[in-house]
């Protein structure tokens, strides 16, 4: 299969994902109607679908660790951030799970936990585990972003605390990225010898030049660098928020 053929045909029209997305869209409008920020929600839905039905998903499903990492980043950082942003101003959540420590552990744990070799392997081969993974990533990512993107100002961390929160999370994920990049052994052995369901393996290894070592290195670098860039962007957003915070009730840094 050539690259062109692959990218045109390898769309997985996963009915469950499509139905769930449709249900979520309807649910969102029923729950919030005009009060919400539907553009963010639509963006979240689009990214979610791209992550799960596009050819990237086919690659992540047992072929390429790096594609899996792209999917992972989209599901744990981008989609949840957009979801939290789509909530209306009036939305409020009072629960022990909104403690900053829980949010931090959820966000960092989502990275570390699912890259334990056993779990990583299982998620790449079993559809059930993969579904559990997707759900948990969305939930853990949302808990993480809640601390800095919650709809109400008073439910977010103060900007300076937010910077510490994001910086430490960035460091914790970078360490995992560094380990993945330099690890001489496969973290997710499934990707070393993929079962060639789609007949694309020769294209990947040949035309794309992605050997399994190089593939894992790219995966690690993706977690290390672009992921950190996302956190860095969020840190700058916190600084902007700090400098533009209205007076006088806002300077409780």
């Amino acid at each position, binding site marked *: 299969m050539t690259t062109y053929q692959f990218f045109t045909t390898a769309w997985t029209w996963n009915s469950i994902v499509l139905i769930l997305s449709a249900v979520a869209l309807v649910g969102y409008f029923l729950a919030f109607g005009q009060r919400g920020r539907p553009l963010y929600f639509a963006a979240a839905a689009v990214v979610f679908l791209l992550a799960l039905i596009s050819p990237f998903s086919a690659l992540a499903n047992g072929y390429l660790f790096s594609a899996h990492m792209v999917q992972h980043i989209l599901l744990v950082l981008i989609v949840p951030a957009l979801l939290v942003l789509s909530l209306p101003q009036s939305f409020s959540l009072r629960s022990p799970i909104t403690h900053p420590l829980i949010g931090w552990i959820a966000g960092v744990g989502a990275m570390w936990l699912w890259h334990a070799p056993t779990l990583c392997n299982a998620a790449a081969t079993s559809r059930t585990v993969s579904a559990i993974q997707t759900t948990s990533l969305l939930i853990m990512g949302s808990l993480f972003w809640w601390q800095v993107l919650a709809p109400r100002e008073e439910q977010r961390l103060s900007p300076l605390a937010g910077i510490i929160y994001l910086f430490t999370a960035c460091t914790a994920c970078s360490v995992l990225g560094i380990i993945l990049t330099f690890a001489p052994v496969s973290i997710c052995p499934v990707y070393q010898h993929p079962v060639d369901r789609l007949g694309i393996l020769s294209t990947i290894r040949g035309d794309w030049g992605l050997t399994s070592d190089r593939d894992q*290195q790219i995966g690690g670098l993706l977690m290390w660098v672009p992921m950190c860039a996302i956190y*860095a962007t969020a*840190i700058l957003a916190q*600084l902007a928020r700090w400098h533009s915070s209205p007076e006088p009730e806002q*300077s409780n840094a």
Partner: protein
Amino acid sequence: MNGTTTIAEFRDAILDPAKRAHYRLAWLSTVDHKRIGVLYMLTGLFFFIVGGVEALFIRLQLAVPNNHLLHPDTFNKLFTLHGTTMIFLVAMPLLFGFVNYVLPLQIGARDMAFPRLNAFGFWCQPFGGILLHFSILAGGAPAVGWFSYAPLSETPYSSTPGIDYWAIAIFVLGLGTISFAVNTITTVISCRGPGMTMRRLPLFTWMNFINSFLILIALPVLNAGLAMILIDRQLEGHFFLPFRGGSAVLWQHIFWAFGHPEVYIVVLPAFGMVSEIIPVFSRKPIFGYEFVAASTVAIVVLSSLVWGHHMFTVGMGRPMDLFFIITSMLIAIPTGVKVLNWSATMFGGRIRFDVPMLFCIAFLIQFTFAGLTGISHASAALDWQTKNSYFLVGHFHFVFVGAIVFAMLGALPYWFPKMSGRMMSESLGRWTFWLWVIGFNMTFIIQHVLGLYGMPRRIFTYPDIPGWGWMNMLSTIGVFFMSAGSLVLLWNVAHSLFRGRVAGDNPWNAWTLEWATTSPPQHENFVALPPIHSRRPLWDVANPDRPDPVVGDDQVVLPDHNKTGILAFIFSEVGFFGTLILAYLYFYAHPQAGPGPKGLDVPRTLIFSVCLFASSFTFWRSEVALTKQRRGSMLGWLGLTIALGGVFLVGQVNEYWKLFQTGVDLSTNMFSTTFFTLTGFHGLHVLIGLIVLLIFLWVAWEGDFASSRPGSAFKAAGYYWHFVDVVWVFVLLTVYILPLMR
């Protein structure tokens, strides 16, 4: 007799106040931030002369082809000492001297948060410098470049003690730098004057505050690397010895993970100086304060992600190269933002071309040039061609001299009136300026061309290739201009100190708080602070009818300085242990023959670990007892904490002993090298923690806590103790538990 007097007597027995006040000891025993700042600068100036003379000899040797003025080995030693001296003993002490003097004044503080720690940090500098240069007498200076690449720096290839002195010296300097950064962070967080909220900090203070975090990120990584190379050399470890299973590339990763942030560590204070001087001499507030401030944070975050661009020629592989290319290009954005902001500040201003401003303008042009050649190195393909050539030498000298030294040459006449009470001579200053501008550009612009013509770095001489001779001669002639400029500068400082025009409080009509006090400031810095509502309090005082817009509200939150200080220190320790743990994992992934983690006695270690973890609980009980003023209970729990920590240490010694009995020591294989290093450094930290707790036990026994202060210092010591336990959690997981899961 209560405890307080005992401790005071103990202190006075060493040095009584009368002796301390005597002029001969006043400077040696000072803990005043202003005097320490001056001492830092004098140290930096002294080593600037040393490093400058070293540079002069390097250039004299290279002035003509086939020169035999210096022996090749002497040349290697000279450029190693020159690089190390200029970075660690000139740029850092000089910049930290300015920070030490100016930063507390700018935020309306009486002194740094920890004056004695400040003195400790300073004294590390001359001692580090002496250690480094003592190697010349002790059998051979280091001759491997300032980056000390392994395996050249290992015993089989460098058998003289030069590298050992180099590593210990840098380690000592690193400790001083870390203590300086901890102090700066704590001073800014905990010692600001009324109204000086974090959003109103002058940019010089803000940048050095942020920079201190970068120091705490980067320096511990280097310290861990230095510890490893010393272990290799002194205890026959194999971290960086490829033929024993070590990795020479690992040293490069560690060194540049420090080395690239280091560039920003010395350039950010320079940025801070320029951000103060340009607005004052353009008679305008800085353009886009928020952008300048935020881009500093962006630089700090990004700078830890770009070190790989120093290693394109190592062969890290296409993916690594690609990612480091992207991040290296990205970091040009926040730096470019700053250049634009400084230019925009000058745009439309009534610019006064006094000497400080002249240097800042030269800084701006030269730094932009340095940035452009710098970003060309972000492209790996180009980097492969220019890496080890004089193009690179030209580039980084444009950063270090063209930007950093020029910023300091501008900052000296700017703050000299505050430090001495007298102005520096304007005409002599112009002589220095032009001699430096001509000399600097003559020396270093041509080096770019030389590099493109193919002249490699680190060669002691070269054949008579067409063009190389005259270009090198031109480069050498430039050094004499800079030397002449420096002599004029020294004369200017000496002369102005006694004969300069009296400055008054605020000779430049500047706006930050250091100009609100006398020149030089009295011991306590301020009699009274002006009201602070904006970023330019003295502008508001001078122009009550059109003050600056108020920034935020006036409420200043000052967290406890002991806790802040220890948290900053712990932050740096995370980097140290993080590096050691990553190095352990790196070699764990390549198992070797011989002893391995499977041979460790996990159940016994778990028992001793429980003791250590329990000690965190008992310490917490002791803290509770202290809050409730129950002295007996507090002493009991504290004693139990120390006992539990001691039991853990005994357990570790026992484990070591058993390993030694079976013939396993640090030099056996990679596992033993990394195992003993990691657990050994943790054990050392437990030991230090125990000593601290014993001191507290002694103080509490004497009854000191019973009186006024229920000890935030005690809580701070607790943070450290808990941290040591948390580190053990990670060590336990990686060393003992991880192998069980395989």
